[in-house]
């Protein structure tokens, strides 16, 4: 039993340049049910649900010390299994669930067929440029700041207010990418 995938699904973005489908097309459901899924996700009760799910994740992030600069240093120095164990078991649980969802053709609670869109390799002459160049730049930021985007917000909630500056910088970085993207290899 093989689940079909949508080979190309462009996002709603209007600009020319590198393909862009990773953020705007977040509903991973069959194309005909996408608008329905989006509308359901924006209902007040659904939004409250997402808020609560985020709060659950924020508590885990803090209590497992995933948001700690110290823990990220420990990880990049290979001096503890802690972070590797967390990422490894998170991926294992997620991968197992995704396989079950695909093989059993599980639908969302509202009945939309779930369809995961594959990541695009891009079309630049440098294969996978966006993944390894962008990934390396992100990794540098991760090791400096000791926090990836989720933990930035969890640390702000934990009262470490100087992370507001890191958030503003991250927004500036996102904006800079948006301004430069047509000139970057993808």
């Amino acid at each position, binding site marked *: 039993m093989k689940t079909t995938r949508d080979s190309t699904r462009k996002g709603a973005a209007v600009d020319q340049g590198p393909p862009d489908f990773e953020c705007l097309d977040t509903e991973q459901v069959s194309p005909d049910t996408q608008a329905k899924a989006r509308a359901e996700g924006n209902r007040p009760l659904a939004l409250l649900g997402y808020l609560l799910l985020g709060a659950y994740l924020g508590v885990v992030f803090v209590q497992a010390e995933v948001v700690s600069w110290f823990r990220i240093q420990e990880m990049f120095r290979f001096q503890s299994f802690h972070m590797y164990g967390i990422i490894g078991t998170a991926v294992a649980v997620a991968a197992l669930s995704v396989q079950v969802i695909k093989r059993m053709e599980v639908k969302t609670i509202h009945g939309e067929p*779930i369809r995961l869109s594959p990541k695009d390799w891009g079309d630049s002459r440098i294969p996978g440029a966006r993944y390894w160049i962008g990934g390396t730049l992100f990794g540098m930021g991760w090791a*400096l700041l000791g926090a990836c985007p989720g933990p930035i917000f969890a640390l702000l909630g934990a009262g470490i207010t100087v992370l507001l500056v890191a958030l503003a910088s991250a927004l500036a970085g996102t904006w800079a990418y948006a301004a430069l993207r047509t000139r970057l290899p993808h």
Partner: protein
Amino acid sequence: METMLESLAAPWPWYVAGPLIGLVVPILLLVGGKVFGISANLRHMCAALPAPEGLKPSFLRYDWKKSGGWNLFFIAGVALGGFLAVTFLGMPDAGQSISEATRSDLAALGIQDFSGLVPAELFTWSSLFTPAGFVVIVMGGFLVGFGARYAGGCTSGHAISGLADLQLPSLVAVLGFFAGGLLVTFGILPLLLG
């Protein structure tokens, strides 16, 4: 109650925390066909910033409320969770629970305060005016935002959602995360802090 709260004290072991984080992927898929990807919120926030249309790159011109509403609520929840955790369970002393080897390496780089989640030498408002604090917070933040969008995802989107769906591009991105992280840890931080 006392003992229940004590048993919830940090650090939660990896074999508890990892699966709890991994579960977010199927929950989001089942509830609304959503993909776990946090850095998209940085884009939604940029799209939400009031700026003259002419100054806004087309990448940031879209209906952010419609596409990103759920995710912005989700990330607000993550901040709320951070608040609830430190308020009701206490601020974890990650600097104390890390390995002895890391503590001595960091002490050799001049880190002295090992209380809390982040070193006080780098993460206070006044540290922004030191070269190390500026690079860590301002440059680090910039690279996180730039790199995540360039790579098309961050730790959640690539390392968790992408690897869970066995996506090769995500594996390349994750290898990049580590290449960049090692470069900073062993090449840049010693110069910056030492």
